[in-house]
């Protein structure tokens, strides 16, 4: 025999109570946890890594050296198609680097200039706010770091990043060892046997080389750039007024990408 009306109303009432309870319980037990975390870690004392690209000294040949140095250091393969492109550091024209600075009468020197771009390691990184697993987070020294072990490949961070600094692995990057056409493009892959590759389904980006910083070395791109042209890239501590980056920023006029968004990039272009 089924339940009677009285029984049914009791159950329905109870389940309605719990149904409502789902959202309400979250608000009571863990307030704020349902929203993407909007809290930005406070700036700690100590180092704040930043980079200055001297746009006047930098030329395409140096940029190519930087890109090669970075992508070989971190085993970033060339997958042949822009649709699946993985990039940590790349070249872009003025119009797309500084879309907010577009004006039809801009100095010709800059109109046709190419800029070297990478992750801006923003002071207020939107990618960190949206990451559901904290696979990307901001270190105390300002580096916006990636933990590939924790990335679930949801690509929220890619949608959040206004600079296109993040790439998704649509397939296993090691397929460049198996597919004939890709083999040609990536001779010697993996170039650095002391650094891992990535796996299918994770997002990757520039990390300011914390594994090199830990050993007292400069990021791979900075090292490569200064080998070819001294002073074309400067890396250092933004919190230290005596540091080389601060010195350059004091003396030269510098611009950043999309400042109106308030993410406060730590990648500066001295012009």
């Amino acid at each position, binding site marked *: 025999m089924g339940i009677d009306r009285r029984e049914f109303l009791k159950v329905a009432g109870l389940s309605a109570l719990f149904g409502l309870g789902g959202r309400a319980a979250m608000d009571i037990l863990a307030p704020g946890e349902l929203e993407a975390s909007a809290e930005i870690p406070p700036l700690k004392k100590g180092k704040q890594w930043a980079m200055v690209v001297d746009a006047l000294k930098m030329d395409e040949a140096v940029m190519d050296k930087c890109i090669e140095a970075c992508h070989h250091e971190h085993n970033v393969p060339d997958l042949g198609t822009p649709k699946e492109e993985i990039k940590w550091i790349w070249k872009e024209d003025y119009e797309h680097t500084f879309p907010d600075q577009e004006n039809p009468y801009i100095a010709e020197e800059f109109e046709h200039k190419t800029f070297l771009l990478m992750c801006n390691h923003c002071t207020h990184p939107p990618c960190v706010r949206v990451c559901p697993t904290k696979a990307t987070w901001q270190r105390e020294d300002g580096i916006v*770091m990636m933990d590939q072990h924790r990335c679930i490949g949801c690509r929220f961070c890619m949608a959040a990043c206004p600079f296109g600094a993040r790439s998704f692995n649509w397939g296993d990057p090691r397929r460049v060892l198996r597919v004939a056409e890709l083999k040609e493009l990536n001779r010697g892959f993996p170039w650095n046997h002391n650094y891992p590759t990535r*796996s299918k389904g994770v997002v990757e980006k520039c990390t300011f080389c914390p594994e090199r910083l830990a050993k007292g070395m400069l990021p791979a791109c900075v090292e490569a750039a200064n080998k070819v042209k001294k002073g074309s890239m400067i890396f250092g501590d933004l919190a230290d007024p005596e540091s080389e980056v601060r010195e350059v920023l004091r003396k030269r006029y510098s611009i950043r990408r999309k400042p109106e968004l308030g993410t406060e990039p730590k990648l500066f272009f001295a012009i």
Partner: protein
Amino acid sequence: MYDGWKIIVGLIVCLAFFTFPFFYDAGKAAKAPEPVLTPKAKEAKECVAPGAYMKRYHMQLLEDWRNTAVRGGERYYDTGNPTWHLRVMDKIADATASAGERLYKSVERKVYYKSLQVTCMDCHSNKSKFCDQCHNYMGIAPYCWECHIEPEEKK
């Protein structure tokens, strides 16, 4: 019971059929493989912790290394300051913790760069004989090598 003998015979046949794999393999259990040490590992004598301890807890150590190195930014491990051991002992159940305490003895004080790919595999460059053998025997497939590059082995 109608047709009782048919049912009983049927049951016996079924039982024999389904338990056949157990009888077939009975007494033929594969021996657990011993990890093979490379000459370099043998020469070093000591790992980052005592061997018996590493056999049992290397996965906890590796997890701790990856968390503290990647997330904490502490990329060097000092054997004289085995905080990870205390963290591990905190996490695991009491029964095995006592075994862990028994197995843990301090090793020669040394600082290691925390890296599976660079430090561990430098000594243990024979992944197939050192890692895979046991992992295959236990039927586990850690996903370390999807990203971390394994050393090339001479065939």
